[in-house]
Every structure is written in C-alpha cells, then in structure tokens.
C-alpha cells in the first residue's frame, strides 16, 4: 500500500519560497520520477514527503492518512540517499538490520528478512564486510537492501545513481526497475538525468523552480510536451527550438523539432547549412549544423553511419507531422 497525496504542499526557507503550493497524487505501485534541473526543488519535495523537512503549508496524505506532522520513521517510507549514507562502523548485515533492530523485531524475523534481501540483491558474498571494503555499486545495493527489509509503503530514491560510473549506472538502473516490477511497491525517484527518468518511470513529474511543469508518462512527455521548458528538457539530444521568422511562418512564437525528426540530404531540402561538428556513435550520428539561415544552430540525429565531414553542405528537412508549436507564453499549440 502506498498512495501518496500532496495537497497544496508548500515549502519556504525564511522569505524564499522554494516550493509554491502544489498538488500531486502518486498511485499505489507507481514508479514516479521527479526530474528537473539543479535547484528546482525536486530533492526538497522528496524530503518533505520523507518528513526530513517540515512543510510550510498544505497536507501530505499517505494511504489516506494525514502524515503532515508524523515523524519520518512513522510514515512507513524508506529512503536511499545519494551518498548511500551507510553506517561505516557496522557490517553489511548490521547495516541492513538496523531499521529492524530499531523497530524491535524478533531476531529470527530479522534474519529471515535480511537473508531474503541479501538474496534478492546478491549481497550474500559480502554480508559480513564493512561498507569501506565495498565498491560503489555494492554500497548502492546495501543501501537498497536496508530500504527493502523494512517492507515500506513506498521507496524514496534521492539521485541514487549519480555517484556511479556510466556503465554501472545503466546496470543499476535496470536492477532498480526489475526490483520495482518484482516488489510492485510505490517508488519515488529523484534525478536530474532525463535518461534515467525516461527509462525507469511510469510517470514523470517535471519540475522547475518548485513548479510542476508537466506530469505524464515518458512517451506523453516526449510526444506532447506542454511547454517550451519540457520540450527542451526531455529528449536527448535536446529538441531544436527555433524562434523568429521561421516560427512566424507556422503562426507561433517558437517551433520545436527533435533532432531525430529531421532528414538529411546532400542535395535538396528545406534548410541549407554547413556541418560543424559530427559525432559518430556507430548506431547514430549527430550533426551540429551551422549557417542554416535560422537564428539557431541545428542538431540532427541520423540512424547508422553517415559519411559527412565538417564543412560539408547539407540540406535539412523537418518532418512536419512532428513539429511542435508554442505560443508567446511558451505553451503548446495543438
């Protein structure tokens, strides 16, 4: 069980309003990702839900129960921290046992749960070591283990993968997603990495300066970003946002076209330009195209290997069906 409702929750630090009143519902069993640039209040929002910060207004309900004034331990939530926050003077087993010990659980039940968690997370081989002797990925698993033994109503993850190297991050991302499909517990995951958000989430919450910009499934956000900010934030490489005359032709302030929705030809097309840098990834090729006659440089993504050098002339043609149009306020025009 883990349905979390935020009702006009706000947070102020002194005079500064970090989070203006916002409403959000997280359904039981959902994997929700809070994503946004640094300082957008996503971690603060998570800490409000966890109870590590006091709310300045509004109400937090967990499974219909008002949890606004509850201490963190009573909310039945488990948190995985960015620094893992393992207890360095305790072995892995004692680390995982700590929340159970604090809850005064009988030894046998503790042992059963710890062994179960260790099996799920492949911790068995180093259960008697200390955190200092573990690698980053192993520490991460211990931190998750410490969260799952409590069998919480919901898991809270605060940028848990940002201290891992790229290869490990992809692996842990998969493991967390698999864990979610196995446990079917509500998970709230904070990240600034939109790739993590897109790959893991059932529902993404895009935040900027404490405001919710859009809530939706990854593909909803990809296909129909509600405003310029979401359009620019979701998708990699970034969407090309074009202002000025070209946008005027479509009767709006800004038009957006994703790099993968532009076709490239050496001979004919809508916009003529010159290739600046090209990045060959093997599976894809990214071109940064200058001198297109538009105010902005364009990024283009082409599948597979394309032979084209810096300085070559290219013609770009956007896929008109996939053009996004935004009005003066930056809102989407359908």
């Amino acid at each position, binding site marked *: 069980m883990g349905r979390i409702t935020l009702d006009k929750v706000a947070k102020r630090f002194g005079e500064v309003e970090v989070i203006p009143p916002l409403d959000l519902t997280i359904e039981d069993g959902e994997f929700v990702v809070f994503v946004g640039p640094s300082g957008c209040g996503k971690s603060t929002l998570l800490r409000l839900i*966890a109870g*590590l910060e006091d709310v300045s207004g509004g109400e937090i309900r967990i499974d219909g129960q008002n949890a606004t004034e509850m*201490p*963190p*331990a009573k909310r039945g*939530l*488990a*948190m995985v*921290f*960015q*620094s893992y*926050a*393992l*207890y360095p*003077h305790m072995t892995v087993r004692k680390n995982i046992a*700590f*929340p159970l010990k*604090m*809850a005064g659980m009988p030894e046998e039940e503790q042992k059963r749960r710890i062994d179960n968690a260790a099996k799920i997370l492949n911790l068995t081989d180093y259960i008697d070591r200390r955190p200092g002797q573990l690698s980053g990925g192993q520490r991460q698993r211990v931190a998750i283990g*410490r969260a799952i033994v*409590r069998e919480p109503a919901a898991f809270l993850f605060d940028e848990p993968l940002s201290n891992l190297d790229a290869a490990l991050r992809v692996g842990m991302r998969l493991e967390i997603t698999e864990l979610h499909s196995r446990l079917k517990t509500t998970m709230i995951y904070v990240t600034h990495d939109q790739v993590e958000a897109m790959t893991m989430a059932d529902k993404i919450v895009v935040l900027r300066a404490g405001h919710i910009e859009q809530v939706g499934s990854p593909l909803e956000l990809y296909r129909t970003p509600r405003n310029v900010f979401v359009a620019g934030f979701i998708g990699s490489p970034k969407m090309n946002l074009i202002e000025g005359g070209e946008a005027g032709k479509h009767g709006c302030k800004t038009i957006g076209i994703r790099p993968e929705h532009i076709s490239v030809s050496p001979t004919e097309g809508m916009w003529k330009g010159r290739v600046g840098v090209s990045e060959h990834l093997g599976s894809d090729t990214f071109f940064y195209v200058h001198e297109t006659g538009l105010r902005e440089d364009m990024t283009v993504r082409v599948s597979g290997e394309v032979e084209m050098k810096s300085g070559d002339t290219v013609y770009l043609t956007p896929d008109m069906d996939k053009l996004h149009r935004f009005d003066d306020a930056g809102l989407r025009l359908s």
Partner: protein
Amino acid sequence: MSTQHSRSAARLMISPSVILLLAWMIIPLSLTLYFSFLRYNLLMPGANPFVGFENYTYFLTDPAFFTALTNTLLLVGGVLVITIIGGVLLALLLDQPMWGQGIVRILVIAPFFVMPTVSALVWKNMFMNPVNGLFAYMAKAVGLQPFDFLAVAPLASIIVIVSWQWLPFATLILLTAMQSLDSERLEAAEMDGAGPFARFFYMVVPHLSRAITVVILIQTIFLLSIFAEILVTTNGGPGNASTNLTYLVYAQSLLQFDVGGGSAGGVVAIILANIVAIFLMRMIGKNLDA
C-alpha cells in the same frame, strides 16, 4: 627528494636540528640516570659516591610512593572521564545552531589559554576558599556549612580544576569531529526509526571514537606530569593526599635536597609513563588504524 644527491643534501640540511634535539633529550636523560646511582644530597656537600640501586630501593619502598602512584592514576583517570563525557555533551550543545555561536565558542575555549598556576589560584582563592570563596558564599546563602574543598577533598578538587582546564581542548576536538559527521547518515538513521538517543549511541559515538582516542592519548601525556596546580593549591597535602609522582620527585629533590633520590624517582616516573603509553597504544591504538 629523488636523486642520491638531493637526498644527501637533505640529510645534511636537517642534521643540525636533529642533533640539537637529540642532545636536548639525551643529555638531561643521561645525567638523570647518572645522578640516580649516586648518593648526592645538596645538604651534604663533598663526595658523591656511587651507591648502585640504593636510591631506587629507597624511593620504591617509600610509603608515599604508592600513594603518589595511586593519586597519579586517579588524577589522570578522573580528568579523562570528566573531560570526555563533558566534552561530548558540550560539543553536542555547541553543534546546535544558535545565536552568537562564534562568541560562545571562543568563550568556551578561553580556559585553555589561562596559565595553570593562574587558574589554580583563581579556583583556590575565589571559588573553593571556605571563607571568601564563591562556593562558600553560595553554601551560606542557603544556610549550609561551607565546605573546605582543598582540605577535605584535595585530590577531587584538583581533578575538578584540571578538568576545567582541559575540557575546552576535548570539546574543541570532539566538536570538529562531530561536524564532520555526514548529516545524511543521521537522516538515514532517523528514517530507519532511530530516536535521538539511539542516533547518539549508534551513530555519533562510534563516529567520535577516533577523536576520543586522540583526546585520551594527548591528555594522558600532559596529565601524567601535572605539577603547577598541586604546587599552588595544596602543596601535595594534607599529608600526601594530593601528591602525585611528579610532585613526589619535586619534593624529594628540591624540598629534601636529595638529588640522587629525586633522579631515581624521575627514572621510575619515565618507566611508568612508558608502561601507561604501551597499554594505551595497545588498547586504543587500533582505533587509529581503521
């Protein structure tokens, strides 16, 4: 410092200070050793014959020796207990955000800058004096008989005075250690259901263990040789109730003018200090490795 040439140059450069330091230590030590085997009393000038271990026998069989030894250990142990427990509590208090934090911290450190003789005299005359002292005044104010601290409980009073001097040192080191505790770890413990006391005993105390080790080691070195506080307050008395080893050596060599006996006492003190040091290193040295 990698080539042969630069290494020998470096050795040449540091040799004056190394030799000076070595001489500074070796000469007094060897002279003390030498005197300890002589019958050498300033009241009996003339020949100073070699007497073997007589001075040692005399010093070790002196009933005052065991009193002094017990007093030394009580003094060191008592001050360590008070400063560490008090230091942890004060550090906890000072770690809380509060108004005027900077000034309060400076004030807390202040006793450490007061000379031992001065602070001991202040305690003796302004606080513990049974007639004019503040404590006597307070006792009289509530209708109690003033308590003559330095006469009735001399060792305990000296422990209090010395603790007062060393508390700031312990507090300072423990406070910096406490500030290096990762706040996420405390929050994790809070989420895990640990209340304030559980957080203190399971998170803060283990984190402080290394700093506590440092405090114990450094303080023990200095506390074994406490002297000024005893000299200006009780003069080791009444009787020898507050005489520690250092004071006994002083009494032997400078009150009884027995240089040989005093030197033997000094050598015994050195040996005892080393025994204590070995035990300390064994007991808590491993804390520093981890």
